[in-house]
């Protein structure tokens, strides 16, 4: 029978098929752990006298709470410090590999897994973190889980689950210059809505997706959860193999050939049937920004702030009213006239080397707008090292940006990197919820190049708005 990519990966991981409406028992190849959602899971093991079943299929890093300056000093916030100390103790006690603050492989879980070559096509990946969907860019089935499920995976290396539905999102055509993966996914979410993907695995396909780099594909899959989806996936191809090859944990020699032969079978059959289908024309896409307080409230940058009356259904109208009030925006204002106080360049959505390169290329030889604070936070310590080897940090510093240590940072402001009440940010992260980046803070989600142009002009801008440099 013809199958979709998601169905193939699922089939290949069924340990035991559920009967009479019971869930399937699904094997989990890789679990990623971080300090916020793992403590109670480890404690549960301890309480029951259990050991992790496969300690060699777990990887822990510190990211959500870690400071991005003065990382050699003790962490000031007590709760943060306790969570990090707890993760370290748990990792030691149970023998889990951990990359701690200061370690070369420390960083955001979703940046570290792929960079080590642990994220591979066709595997199942889970983490107590909703943006686990990122790893689907490799053709893996990857999704976020709760703390009791983290414990379940630690103890059994499986999860009891009912199969997800599948949705094909086809992006045909070619992206215009200056239009990026971030704009694609913001447009997808604006189109299907923040609940549009609920219960589905989204499979991104089509020419425009194929032409994206792995970094771009990760940006797209990362935000699948913002459409409410369980996971996002992209069938692996030469771009994928090229990225994985030679990484520390990638298969080698004959194993590599065997792996690639299998990976090539991981694509939706031509006659596979999806539960839902969506089409988007890449040629029509422009740089996208959000104006509201959920990732579905986005528009092309050339548009104006919408009025609540523009929305026909009551729920959207009320949501728009609330969002405009929180964001302090007046309907009809061109989006490009909106002044920002802070530009945040980083997160598991856009904190990879290619993102930093794109940002650097736009700001090179320029100075930031004097009223704007600019933070550049690499997604991992290794991204930071690589950026420095390429001299990108000099570009950032000359531009007037802060060059920080790796972590989640202002994506969620669990560490001191927060917006102040009323402060407005253009952010390359994935959530513009009320207070997400700091109590009372206002967030506009943007791509790295829009973040760069905004940092130069002081208002939401795309690179095409910039005057050529002399």
């Amino acid at each position: 029978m013809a199958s979709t990519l998601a169905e193939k990966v699922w089939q290949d991981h069924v340990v035991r098929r559920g009967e009479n409406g019971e869930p399937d028992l699904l094997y989990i190849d890789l679990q990623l752990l971080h300090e916020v959602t793992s403590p109670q899971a480890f404690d549960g093991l301890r309480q029951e006298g259990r050991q992790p079943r496969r300690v060699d299929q777990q990887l822990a890093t510190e990211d959500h709470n870690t400071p991005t300056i003065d990382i050699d000093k003790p962490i000031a916030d007590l709760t943060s410090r306790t969570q990090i100390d707890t993760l370290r103790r748990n990792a030691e006690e149970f023998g889990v590999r951990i990359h701690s603050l200061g370690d070369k492989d420390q960083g955001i879980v979703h940046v570290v897994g792929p960079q080590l070559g642990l994220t591979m096509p066709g595997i199942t990946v889970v983490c107590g973190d909703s943006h686990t969907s990122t790893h689907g860019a490799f053709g893996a089935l990857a999704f976020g889980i709760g703390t009791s499920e983290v414990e379940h995976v630690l103890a059994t290396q499986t999860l009891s689950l009912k199969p997800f539905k599948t949705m094909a999102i086809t992006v045909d055509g070619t992206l215009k210059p200056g239009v990026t993966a971030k704009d694609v996914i913001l447009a997808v979410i604006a189109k299907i809505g923040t609940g549009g993907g609920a219960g589905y695995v989204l499979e991104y396909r089509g020419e425009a997706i194929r032409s994206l780099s792995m970094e771009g594909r990760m940006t797209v899959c990362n935000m699948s959860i913002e459409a409410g989806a369980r996971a996002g996936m992209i069938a692996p191809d030469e771009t994928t193999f090229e990225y994985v090859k030679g990484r520390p944990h990638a298969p080698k020699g004959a194993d590599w050939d065997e792996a690639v032969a299998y990976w090539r079978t991981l694509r939706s059959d031509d006659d596979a049937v999806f539960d839902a289908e969506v089409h988007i024309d890449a040629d029509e896409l422009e740089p996208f920004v959000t104006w509201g307080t959920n990732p579905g409230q986005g528009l092309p940058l050339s548009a104006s702030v919408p009025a609540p009356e523009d929305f026909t259904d009551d729920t959207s109208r009320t949501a728009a009213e609330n969002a405009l009030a929180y964001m302090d925006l007046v309907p009809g204002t061109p989006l490009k006239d909106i002044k920002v106080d802070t530009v945040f360049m980083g997160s598991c959505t856009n904190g990879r080397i290619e993102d930093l390169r794109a940002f650097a290329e736009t700001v090179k030889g320029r100075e930031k707008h004097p009223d704007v604070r600019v933070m550049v936070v690499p997604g991992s310590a290794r991204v930071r090292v690589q950026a420095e080897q390429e001299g990108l940090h000099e570009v950032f510093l000359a531009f007037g940006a802060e060059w920080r240590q790796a972590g989640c940072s202002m994506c969620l402001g669990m560490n001191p990197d927060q917006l102040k009440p009323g402060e407005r940010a253009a952010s390359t992260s994935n959530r513009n919820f009320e207070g997400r980046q700091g109590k009372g803070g206002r967030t506009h989600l943007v791509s790295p190049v829009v973040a760069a142009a905004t940092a130069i002009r002081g208002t939401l801008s795309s690179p095409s708005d910039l005057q050529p440099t002399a």
Partner: protein
Amino acid sequence: MEAFTTHTGIGVPLRRSNVDTDQIIPAVYLKRVTKTGFDDGLFNAWRANDPDFVLNREPYSRGSVLVAGSDFGTGSSREHAVWALRDYGFKAVLSSRFADIFRGNAGKQGLVAAQLTQDDIEQLWKILEENPGTEVTVDLVERQVHAGDTGAVFPFEIDDYTRWRIMEGLDDIGLTLRHEEDITAFEATRPSWMPKTLPARIAEDA
């Protein structure tokens, strides 16, 4: 999770209805990193401010069977409420009605949430107040509560699946581990090149 068939311990009359999870354990205790050690948070506001609160009195403070008013465990879904009751030493809570989420969470942790009629709850309260320290037996096999040597027996309800799981001592993990052979058999079929985090391999610096 420990298997539970019957339990005998001091009964604690909690003459209050609509005890929500915020009252069972206040939000400030949710910042913790453990799943145990929540006993100090249990009914914290009442224990700290009301010397007459039942758990501030001997011998009730050593109780392990809570006899509560109706609609126990409403409000926020925090699993911590169950953890706090369990950590304090409670093995069973009796009430004429439980909030759904609380009942689900209790089942996951092996805390028996037994539903009695309100009349029977009132009778139990009377017995426990007139004879402090009365031991109550919760018999999950027979689905009955016995009040000490008074001879009084009260039937209770609990759903079959939860009862079976608690009697077998099976939490979700325990249930999955019943299929451990299947997991082992599956693992034997996995190619050797599947990701392994250990031993750690670190990239050479470019």
